[in-house]
């Protein structure tokens, strides 16, 4: 336990001291909110204000981008630089090591989502009820865990940091479009509409939006949770199988 705490502390410090990840994790999401605000002002989308409507989208965007792009790169970098090799040569087991890494990633993603929501409420007067927040948080955590797990598959497959980012970007973009948040899913080809419910991004978006927007759980809560659980578990198993201490040569 003591070892786990020391490792977690070290992983956390490395995360917050890395300027690049700090920017993408903490500054960029807020920046995105401000851009939306400046671009679209405080108009209405149907019955809700534009900010209320867009914030859940930014939160989901964070979850996807952090999971697929942010959460795996440090591991790839440590592998590339030979840090993992050194850790492998020490008697530390893989579990506390990877466990502390994942814990820190999930916590940082959570802080980031809370930060976005807090900023939206305080600065842009977003409407959020306590009940909505309480229902949204578990869904956000489910989304983070699912996408952090998927991110570890990317880092397991990618031979280098550059490749990890490229693969993560492609997944991130393609998933972003089926969340029904950038573009209405009704406007997509039929086969994409058919596939979307079985994809994790759509499920996470459907889980996160209703509590933030209306304070209620998603209508098809069970089936969306099932989809995320299948992906989270599958990704975790796959990532464990793909895990390497040294880069391939």
């Amino acid at each position, binding site marked *: 336990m003591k070892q786990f705490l020391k490792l977690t502390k*070290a992983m956390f410090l490395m995360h917050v*001291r890395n300027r690049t990840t700090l920017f993408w994790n903490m500054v960029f999401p807020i920046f995105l909110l401000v851009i939306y605000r400046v671009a679209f002002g405080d108009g209405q989308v149907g019955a809700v204000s534009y900010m209320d409507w867009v914030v859940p989208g930014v939160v989901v965007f964070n979850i996807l981008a952090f999971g697929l792009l942010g959460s795996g790169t440090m591991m790839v970098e440590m592998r590339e630089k030979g840090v993992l090799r050194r850790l492998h040569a020490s008697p530390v087991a893989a579990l506390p090591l990877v466990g502390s890494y994942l814990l820190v990633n999930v916590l940082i993603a959570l802080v980031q989502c809370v930060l976005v929501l807090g900023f939206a409420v305080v600065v842009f007067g977003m409407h959020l009820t306590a009940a909505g927040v309480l229902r949204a948080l578990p869904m956000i955590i489910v989304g983070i865990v699912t996408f952090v797990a998927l991110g570890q598959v990317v880092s397991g497959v990618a031979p280098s940091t550059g490749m990890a980012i490229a693969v993560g970007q492609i997944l991130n973009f393609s998933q972003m479009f089926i969340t029904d948040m950038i573009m209405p899913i009704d406007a997509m080809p039929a086969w994409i509409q058919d596939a979307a419910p079985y994809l994790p991004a759509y499920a996470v978006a459907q889980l996160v939006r209703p509590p933030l927007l209306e304070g209620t759980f998603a209508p098809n809560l069970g089936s969306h949770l099932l989809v995320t659980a299948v992906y989270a578990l599958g990704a975790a198993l796959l990532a464990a199988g793909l895990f390497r201490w040294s880069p391939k040569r």
Partner: protein
Amino acid sequence: MKSMKGKDQMEEMVIRIEGLSAVYGRGARQVRALQEASLAIRRGEIFGLLGPNGAGKTTLLSCVEGIHTPAAGGVWIDGIDVRRYPRVAQRKLGIQLQQTALLDDLTVAELVEVYAALYEVYLDRAAALALLARFELQDKTRSLARRLSGGQKQRLALALAVANDPEIILLDEPTAALDPRARRAVWEIIRRLHQEGRTLVITTHSMEEAEALCGRVAIIDAGRIVACDTPARLIAALDAAPVLRTQFDIPLEQVESLPGVRMVRYSGEYLEIETTRPQETLAGLQQAAVQQGRSIADIMLRQPNLEDVFLRLTGKTLAAWKES
């Protein structure tokens, strides 16, 4: 009586390497990095693995460290089979890998703390500071690892290698890429760790370093251990004469006919003459130079050394050695 003696010898041996073979890759691209290497490293010695780049030194250490699975043979640390109980074996080791990859965004003090924790050793502030002071890093405790100079980084790597107070320390090219001063500082540290009673295994491709530090040396080339003994005995076994070294362009046959000459070769731009009668050889050489209206520069006489041992054992010239 006899069995007692056998047992003592067993205990003297901290690392036993037997018939160790290691490969990388498969099929046509397979590299045989190590072939049937056997070694016994004794408690309390500084043992050197000496060989050119690509000889298999890092691979051999990787097998001892439990991070490369051998294709055949095995390694025992204090009688513990590394392959079967890697984590028990690893607990006894302090290591510094060839590529010093540190968690760059941590400070020196934080790194010491984490590396010790990997071994379930928990250092308090005072202990961490005392450790760093031994490596002259006490003023750098709050510096990020990425901000250290090359020499400081290397001293930190050594401090991290002993953070778990190991009995056995494996250092892979601890002085490569260091300037002469930083190099001597690292030598001093290695000698001190030895005086503390620890066993050290270092790899190097510097003959000078092996002679200066190591009680015993294994010469390794193309994945094979070609010799293993004290530097003095390895050199004595050559039964070689002193070597006259100079910069002079002259046909080798002409030198071979000079008095006392045993062997002549070019090593880079230097002419090296192994001779039992150096003074007469030199006189002959000078005569030849005068006849050609030239003079000889940079004359040096040296005793045979490990470089000559390597040359004799592998048939490779010094120049090839230096370049590789």
